[in-house]
């Protein structure tokens, strides 16, 4: 059990800066998820922490100890690799016991720890098998088991679910969350899948181009994205963005995208008035655009209309691909009772309480 601290950490590969001034404090027993598109530096950050890469600048602490020059084996960490990296020539038991054997742990203790971990993961009956005799899900559990027996201060996961099929992934996701509660240890987890991040993390660190964009709890990240990238990356289908201007006329504030005008309700206008007359990027999530007819009560409603381009029926909801008057496509997630065909006009109610505006130059959130 340990906290982890990144202090102004840099990693450069030649001219490429893979990790750029990363500063994060991960609390003891926290489940931190690094998320971002491929090449964003999330895996590199994890490898820096594991000691598999040397940091170019800054320092990393595990607990109170600076580990910059500490070899991986002495960092008190265990890692689960994307490919699981099980030793193919060893049985499941030996795979799990390997680290303990190298540390000259007494045999009886190795045996006990392996059995306990195997019981925890439901792989007792597989201990004599070789990795190639296991299914993908079983291998994944063995890889986790190998980490558990070491009883490390910090668990590192590098996209451990990406080689599993969709159903198994959902199941394993829940199991890892349970494991975290049960072991009460710091988990640091890397994924490109925002659903994994949202469902498991106590906090999410969103990265892009080696730079930390935002670190927050899943709900805060979702509700208050710090910039356009985070807004677009978290949530599926992703947030709609429009180049717009905030216009004030007759004491009323309006978002004008050229394709539609939305009145900003008084409550929101208090926050946004400061940017009146300025260009902004207007962001609204698909689930905050309702068919007017089925709009829920108690939202800060503002009305508009659009042409239906494509409809995708999901059963419990409908994804509408809509076209504004200036031919800009955006998506709405509407009630399944909505009956529209392509090219129909539809009246929409937008919940402005959850609308966002961003600075068009810096793309950071304005309010």
């Amino acid at each position, binding site marked *: 059990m340990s906290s982890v601290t990144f202090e102004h950490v840099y990693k450069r590969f030649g001219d490429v800066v893979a990790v750029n001034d990363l500063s994060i404090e991960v609390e003891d027993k926290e489940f931190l998820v690094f998320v971002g598109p491929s090449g964003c530096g999330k895996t590199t950050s994890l490898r820096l922490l*594991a*000691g*598999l890469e040397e940091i170019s600048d800054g320092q990393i602490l595990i607990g109170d100890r600076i580990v910059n020059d500490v*070899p*991986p*084996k002495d960092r008190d*960490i*265990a*890692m689960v*690799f*994307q*490919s699981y*990296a*099980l*030793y*193919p*020539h060893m049985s499941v038991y030996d795979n799990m016991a*390997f*680290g303990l054997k*190298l*540390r000259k742990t007494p045999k009886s203790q190795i045996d006990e720890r392996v059995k306990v971990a195997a019981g925890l993961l439901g792989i007792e009956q597989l201990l004599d098998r070789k990795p190639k005799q296991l299914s993908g899900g079983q291998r994944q559990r063995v890889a986790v088991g*190998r980490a558990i027996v*070491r009883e490390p201060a910090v668990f590192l996961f590098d996209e451990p679910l990406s080689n599993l099929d969709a159903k198994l992934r959902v199941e394993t996701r829940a199991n890892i969350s349970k494991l975290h509660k049960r072991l009460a240890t710091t988990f640091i987890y890397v994924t490109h899948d925002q659903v994994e991040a949202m469902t498991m993390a106590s906090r999410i660190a969103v990265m892009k181009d080696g730079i930390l964009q935002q670190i927050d709890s899943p709900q805060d990240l979702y509700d208050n994205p710090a910039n356009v990238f985070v807004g677009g990356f978290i949530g599926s289908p992703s947030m709609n963005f429009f180049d717009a201007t905030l216009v004030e006329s007759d004491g009323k504030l309006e978002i004008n995208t050229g394709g539609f005008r939305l009145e900003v309700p008084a409550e929101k206008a208090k926050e946004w008035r400061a940017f009146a007359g300025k260009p902004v990027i207007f962001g609204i999530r698909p689930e905050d655009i309702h068919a007017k007819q089925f709009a829920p009560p108690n939202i800060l409603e503002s009305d508009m209309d659009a042409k239906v381009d494509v409809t995708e029926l999901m059963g419990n909801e409908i994804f509408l691909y809509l076209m504004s008057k200036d031919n800009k496509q955006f998506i709405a997630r509407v009630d399944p009772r909505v009956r529209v065909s392509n090219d129909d006009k539809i009246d929409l109610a937008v919940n402005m309480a959850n609308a966002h505006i961003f600075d068009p130059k810096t793309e950071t959130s304005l309010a």
Partner: protein
Amino acid sequence: MTINSAELPTPKMSASSAGKPTGFSLPRMLLNIVLAFWAALVVFPMLWLLYTSFKTDKEIFFSPWSLPAALQWDNYVRGWVDAHIGDYFLNSFIVVLPSLALILGLSAMTAYVLARFPFPGNRIIFYGFMAGMLFPVFLALIPLFFLVKDLGMLNSFPGLILVYTAYSLPFSVFFLTGFFKTLPSELHEAAIIDGANQFQVFFRVMLPLAQPGLLSIGIFNFLGMWNQYLLPLVLMSDAKHYVLTQGLAYMLHQQYYQNDWSALFAAVSMIMIPTLLVYSIFQSQIQKGITVGALKG
């Protein structure tokens, strides 16, 4: 290890022939005839050698194709004892086995480092080994003779072992470097995090995984060294130290003065046995090894 025909790669058949394997097809029949002829061409001399080795000299000369009237086991005794095949066998093993151990040990370690660790000069060393492969042994023969002579190792087993080892390293390193490169780097990293040092990573994780590669390279080298004639011919002039190939040539020359053809046939049959055994036991491994070298080397 037995050879299971199901494990061997079968040539892909065209859709039509695969669809009706029992049907008559002229090209297929022609192919089978050619292959059968070829097989006979290869197998018959060996069979002939084998059954001739049980005949008397008289039978060999007067009815060369007939089967032996009675099995002359005595031929084998004379071949083994009088013609010193037993000694030559021993000498060959004394030279080949330590060479093999040295080659496997050294080339695995060299190849692992060259494949896994980028360091300045890595490529230079690798291409140095490659250059060794390009150099025909005939060109090196005379300088090699003087080198071994100056080292005082002419007519000694250690001398020949060293030369064999040096001679086989380039290809072995080249082959195993390709092999080690195919092993996933995550295994290395996982072992490091598990607490292994570089030696433990190599000996406990990487080397066991390289077994198929080591086996292939071991077989190739064994066959190559077992059949090597030129190097011992130049470096081992003392008849006491003759290896099998030299012994065989020596016996052949002796036939000009003393006629014991039946013993010669028996001796040749015995010499074939280790090579045949290696081939038949490791047949699938040899095929696999060739593919690994071809695709990933």
